[in-house]
């Protein structure tokens, strides 16, 4: 207890160095993950009018679901609405990059797909976009994880991860979930 002012200051400065190393280490890892591993949160600030969402080009009913474009890129367009995802089941290819695009015509929703990096809010007024590659075949739940009204608990979509031999686009390039 016979610490002098100098001793107290010395121990505090030593701890200060430890804190500095800790914070710098954490930040370093985050920067490494963001820049080298390309792990960033979904952040395309892309606006869309929720009031006319289903009349717009991209999110009209016949345009929803998974589509393979001429150059082979795969995109799924999904509407999150009270209390369902449209389409309720999304077909995605195994081990092949896909872009998921979500929009809401009514209130705030959100979703996650466990075991993947897919996790985003769906805010009316914006398109939420996530890039993902699914590496586990089979069916997995895609629940709404944000309170969207009394029916929120029932808002549960599905994702079917299909191997290449089952991921067969039709003439328009569309892929739907396999029937059980």
């Amino acid at each position: 207890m016979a610490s002098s002012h100098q001793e107290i200051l010395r121990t505090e400065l030593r701890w200060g160095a430890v804190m500095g190393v800790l914070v710098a280490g954490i930040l370093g890892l985050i920067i490494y993950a963001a820049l080298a591993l390309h792990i960033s949160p979904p952040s395309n600030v892309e606006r869309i009018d929720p009031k006319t969402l289903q009349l717009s080009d991209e999110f009209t009913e016949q345009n929803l679901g998974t589509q393979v474009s001429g150059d082979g890129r795969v995109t799924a367009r999904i509407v999150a609405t009270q209390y369902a995802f449209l389409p309720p089941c999304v077909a995605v290819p195994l081990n092949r990059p896909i872009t998921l695009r979500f929009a809401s015509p009514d209130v705030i929703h959100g979703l996650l797909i466990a075991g993947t990096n897919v996790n985003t809010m769906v805010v009316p007024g914006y398109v939420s976009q996530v890039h993902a590659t699914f590496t586990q075949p089979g069916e997995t739940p895609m629940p709404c994880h944000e309170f969207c009204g009394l029916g929120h608990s029932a808002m549960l979509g599905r994702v079917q991860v299909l191997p290449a031999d089952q991921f067969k686009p039709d003439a328009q390039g569309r892929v739907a979930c396999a029937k059980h």
Partner: protein
Amino acid sequence: MRSIDDIDRRTAPLVLAHLWLAVVAFAAAAVLGGWQMWARSPLPAPFSTPHNYFLSVTLHGTVMAYVLPTFFIMGFGYFVAVTALERPLPARWAAWIGFGMGVVGVVLAAVPVLMGRASVLYTFYPPLSVAASYYIGIILVVVGSWIWSALMILAMTAWKRENRGEAVPLVMFATVANVMLWLWTTVGMGCELLFQVIPGALGWTETVDVGLSRTLFSWTLHAIVYFWLLPAYIAFYTLAPRAAGGRLYSDTMGRIAFILFLLYSLPVGIHHLFMDPEHGTGFKFLQTVLTSLVTIPTLMTVFTISASLEIAGRLRGGHGPFGWLWTLPWDRPMVLATGLSFVMLWFGGLGGIVNMSYGMNAMIHNTSWVTAHFHLIFGGTTVIMYFAIAYEIWPTLTGRAVQSARAMNMQLWLWFIGMMVTTLPWHWLGLQGQWRRVAEFNYADPIVAAWAPYVIVSVIGGLVLVVSALMFVWNLFKLQRGEVSVAAPMSYAVAVYPPGRVPGMLNGFTSWNVAVLVLMLVAYGYPIAQFFIEPAPQAIVQRIR
């Protein structure tokens, strides 16, 4: 050192009114929390419908977020102002007006919630819209707390005028730091409610800019947690070292820690919006960096308080690098609570670092991991110190003596055990992808069925928490009806080197408020301005009636 009665006989009822309201509301909300866990578990629960569940979550959240901490902190603040500054509270009548506004606000908000007509949790979620009196009630609680804020600032400036050049006692300096933090904090949610949510609820507007409302709420959402947390830190610095029989290692470090909390709890709220589409990566990354800096005052505090307790342990005959831990008086509630709080702080803090880690947030956003994190940091680390503070100041407030600390220590242990048993499985479930805010899970699904054992363990933890919460009320009730004693004097920890004079910057907040303003302009200036530069398409207000 004088008792509260010598200084200001009529402040004690004011403090007790605030604290009892907080305590009773807390116990009721804890019971609801226990029921909510039961309703989501595979065990059959009574009354379990989505309507009841979301009503309950709204009540639980509103009480735990806006009623318990606000009234507790106000009451404790009045107590500190009188006992630490040793002068009567200025304008006590205004304090009662603030309390009255708070009570009216609580009733206005509670009525629609209890009728099941305000089930928007406590985070509002516009464009969902419910009875306006729910939001107006919350605004009234906040306005009542602004009166408290003004009185705290008034008390400190009056003391400084009478004691020119002297250091404001650390406990009051920290309390006013929390006042400043609170005033800044309320701006975001206040603007959201006044300019967006309430006009929508009253039918004056038909659409709402949801991106803006989420951004304004995020302004409040992180800083408010530090407003709740700071009384725990105040107890660490100014009550625990004395209760342990030691000295505060450094008064200056305490001042710097509270200033850093004021600076770095505010410009960080966008880390709650990492998974949102209305903000770009730039500001998300900037606020990640700023959030990482808020670990510094916590790491400083862990160091200073450990050193202070080490002094106490060594004075009591402890030897060796860790021997002093065993000689500490763990039978004293304040010391025990501080130890248990630190354990929960490590777990909760490490979980929080994952949350703020930018891209890594995608792993756990809106899963039970987050619920676990904030229950551990607020419900655990913070609320266990509220218990200890109440036990510490009740004898002074009521002039009754503590007969035995055993029931108090048992209550604190139960709270700690209950919180750990509840939140450790939640962390695990969150990593498994268990999502938030649902009234029930379908345990027939094999993925969900695998969670069942963890969910049941957490329900048992919840039951322990409910028992502990009720025991807390009972302990205070018994204390209040205990034997009359000579009013216990209130004293705060003395530093190893008590400050005589301190630099002006460590004795007031003017320059720090300017610094907060600059930080907020940098961190939130463009993220808010973007909604006005290029207005986003609005969503239609959806009134639930």
